[in-house]
């Protein structure tokens, strides 16, 4: 594995090229473009219905690698079948599942769980814009508490699911969170995901200018703020151990992140203080644990090729 250290280490070759119809400032298409740079031409993408489904529009496609989209809830099931079919056909390729958070946390969790239980050798990246983005920003189980969506006009009441922990409970060998605003961190995780024998899951936070309400030019900054305020933690779970891969030296105030987005514009200063207190509390606990701790999970060392 080549460890990437600086931006110029990222391969120049693109397998998702320009001219597609994703929104201005879309981090989800950026995430796919970056991931494919590392995974290379011998990769087959399985997409679950969502924003990225609009990349190939007949008769054009911006993808230079094979791509299949079936429906929203079956990226895991398709990955399972494709793994066995490619093995029969003697085709060596990375299988990349690229599905949104609604397609992963909600409607697709059953088939994802099935693929994880079988420990299928695939990389599953959930591009997480914290809502059903393609249909216009509706609430999902990945939507953070207090966020406005078109179906939670007064802010979401419930707390988001902890999907990486759910995946960890499936005992798959590699799990990570990431954000395209930290491309080196993200791509090193993609490399590890490709290298590991068995299933790898990456929860990729992709700030969405349309749904979240910010200027398309600010997407990278919003992602940086999500991480630097401590509201989106970058970590990986390997061999049952969770390790933070980025620790903000001095955490920025959550208000900087929240006030920059229309979806949180209804929050009062008091509301934001409460959120700050919760984030502080989590990080104090992490500090005590030392930014890395055992989850007490025995990882599945078997996968279908063994």
């Amino acid at each position, binding site marked *: 594995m080549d460890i990437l250290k600086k931006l110029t280490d990222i391969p120049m070759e693109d397998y998702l090229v320009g001219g597609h119809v994703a929104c201005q400032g879309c981090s989800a298409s950026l995430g796919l473009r970056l991931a494919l740079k590392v995974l290379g031409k011998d990769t087959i993408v399985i997409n679950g219905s969502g924003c990225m489904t609009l990349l190939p529009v007949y008769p054009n496609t911006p993808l230079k690698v094979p791509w299949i*989209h079936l429906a929203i809830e079956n990226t895991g099931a398709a990955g399972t079948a494709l793994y066995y079919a490619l093995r029969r056909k003697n085709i060596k390729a990375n299988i990349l599942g690229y599905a949104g958070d609604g397609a992963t946390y909600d409607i697709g969790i059953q*088939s994802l769980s099935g693929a994880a239980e079988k420990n299928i050798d695939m990389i599953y990246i959930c591009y997480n814009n914290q809502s059903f983005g393609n249909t216009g920003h509706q609430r999902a189980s990945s939507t953070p508490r207090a966020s406005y969506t078109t179906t939670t006009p007064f802010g979401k009441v419930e707390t988001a699911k902890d999907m990486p922990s759910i995946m960890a409970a499936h005992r798959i060998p590699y799990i990570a969170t990431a954000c395209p605003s930290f491309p080196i961190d993200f791509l090193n995780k993609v490399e590890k995901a490709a290298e590991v024998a068995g299933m790898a899951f990456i929860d990729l936070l992709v700030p969405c200018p349309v749904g979240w309400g910010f200027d398309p030019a600010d997407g990278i900054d919003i992602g940086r703020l999500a991480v630097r305020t401590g509201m989106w933690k970058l970590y990986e779970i390997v061999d049952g151990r969770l390790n933070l891969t980025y620790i903000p030296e001095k955490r920025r105030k959550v208000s900087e992140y929240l006030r920059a987005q229309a979806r949180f514009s209804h929050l009062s200063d008091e509301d934001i203080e409460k959120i700050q207190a919760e984030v502080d509390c989590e990080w104090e606990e992490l500090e005590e644990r030392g930014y890395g701790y055992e989850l007490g999970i025995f990882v599945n060392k078997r996968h279908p090729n063994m």
Partner: protein
Amino acid sequence: MRQMITGNGAAAWGARLSRAEIIPNFPITPQTAIIEEIASWIAEGEMNADFLPMESEHSVMSALAAASSAGTRVFSATSSQGLMLMTEMMFITSGLRLPVMLVNVSRGLSAPITLWSDHNDALVQRDSGWLQIFCSNNQEALDSVVMGYRIAEDNDVLLPMMINLDGFTLSTTREPVEIPDQSEIDDFLPAYDPEHTILDPKEPMSVGCVVFDEYMYFRSQQRMAMQNSKGLIKDVCSEWEKMTGRGYGLVEPYFTEDAERVLVICGSESAILKYTIDKLRKDGERVGMLRLRAIRPFPCEEIIDALSDVEEIGVIDQDVSPGSGGIIATEVKACLGGRNVTSFIAGLGGRRIGVEKYEKIFRRLGRDVEEWIF
């Protein structure tokens, strides 16, 4: 090799002889014995395939589509509620023009819960763009699966194929079945070698794209494929007949040439109807039967040909579309434009029809109404 096997066993033999490679599956009564049989063959090394236990029937159909897109020959079986859960993926599979094979062991739909045979499950999928064949006995189940791959995988067709066999009456009933030699089938059915869709980095393509105005064009291609399948089904059936001596077609006429009264039916209930016809003919009654073997493509020309000189026509539906009537009757009436057709709803949820009821039905033709035979 002649063996006493169930309809489920016959369907499993069809998959084995066809050298199906990927078998995603999910258990449901009365289909389960098909996948159990295949599981044991794979475990014992008698069948070279990957057995993928999935987490739902939706995942089964998704896996069939994905594995077929990668160029492997695929097989699965389901029933009733399982087929309903597959519905979304049924349309996607046919739209992607993937020659997926599915055996549906038909069973009535909940609620209330029934385990017994009924055709509503299959007929819910009649608009899904799948080829659909209804079997009347276990031998036909085996033969139809093997022939089905030839039809589905043909470049002029490329549509998924559903083989229907009736739950319990066929699925768990043993009949003598001739199991062809593997070498014979290998000659008849070459390995699947797709030219249209393949997921291979050497030949990158995007599958399952968004379209705009072209949508209607793609749908019309499915219609053309269905039209092409009619001739091909006949050709493949006659080739099969030359090889095995067992002939099939889009329909099976039984004493229709000189009949005054004919009942149209599909599935295994046709066996007792034939017995009834033999009995009535001994008494001099000119009665006959037309069994529809293909429901998609719908054999309209064959129905018109067979029934043009018949005075009184009845259709037996083991299904119902509440608010409209018998589904097959509606389609038969559409073919026969204005002819007097009596529609009988019978045998729902496996309710026994039997000789006496068939005799009653023959007496009640010619009224152009819908009647429920309890």
